[in-house]
């Protein structure tokens, strides 16, 4: 990948990462490593550890919440869940993203 493409991808990732995390948590609650691993596999984060400061910000702004798993189920882990405010923000993004994506797709398809 060229340096230019790399920069474009980095900026695109930065713009959508927060909502990708919210979308992942909307499906099911997740703990750090499995969430980081799933986003990393999809190419949304370059290194897994960089997700944690974002999770901390989402938590401090009330978009996600954390709960500790039952120690009886094995090692105790901190699970992230989506809050109603997080769901509302995700819905807002979805409403803005879908028409925007269609417009950009259409432009890209018609551009020679």
């Amino acid at each position: 990948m060229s340096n230019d493409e790399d920069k474009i991808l980095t900026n695109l990732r930065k713009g959508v990462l927060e909502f990708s995390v919210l979308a992942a948590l909307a499906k099911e609650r997740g703990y750090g490593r499995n969430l980081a691993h799933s986003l990393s596999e999809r190419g949304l984060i370059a290194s897994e550890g960089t997700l944690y400061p974002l999770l901390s910000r989402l938590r401090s702004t009330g978009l996600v919440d954390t709960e500790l798993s039952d120690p009886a189920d094995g090692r105790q882990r901190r699970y992230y869940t989506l809050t109603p405010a997080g769901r509302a923000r995700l819905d807002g993004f979805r409403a803005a993203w879908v028409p925007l994506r269609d417009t950009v797709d259409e432009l890209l398809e018609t551009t020679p």
Partner: protein
Amino acid sequence: MTPTTLHDRAAEQRDYVKVLNKELAVLPPALREDTFRDVNEHLEDAQDDPRPFSESIGAPSDIARSGLEQNDLTAGKVVRPPASLLSKRLQLLTAAIYTPLTIVALLGLTQVVPVGFRFSILLQFIPLFVLIIPQLFARWTSWWPISLLCTALYVGYFIAALSFVTVFFAAGWPTPFPAVVTRFLVGWQTLLVIHAPALALLVTALVRAPAVLRARTRRGA
């Protein structure tokens, strides 16, 4: 894992956590503790991953950079390194020691003193004051180049002043220099008691700075 590799893994984890601690010091306490806790949990979970931690989780400086960027988003602007960071504390300490001396020196200018003496006071006290202020107010993205430049200028001032005072006194007394030259003299005592410790503090601040502040460009998440 064999006992040897288990031991290696534990050593690797210790080293990783040590570097992580240093790098995350650039973050405000709440974000730092949250991130540190999550990364530690990840380290425990990643014991079965054969890759080095810096490869599977990422370099500590990358995690710290991500934290700084998230912190900027929360603040709505590029923030300054926090006062809890060792390098910043050393710069603050330098300013705390030096500012009262500068103020006293400036107050001395209000007294009736010869013009040459006023110039000498300004030459002895103003350079560090002028060079420490930009370092204290630099945002994290420009903290390293600004601190490096200011400290380099201060080193230049120190060497020039030291060379000049050495040459001046080596010439013996009465000196062959015209009287006006004495205005440019910075005394031995001032250089050794004030400027040398201040210089040592500022250089240590640079040496102990986390890698995340030294990186020249921002990278992706």
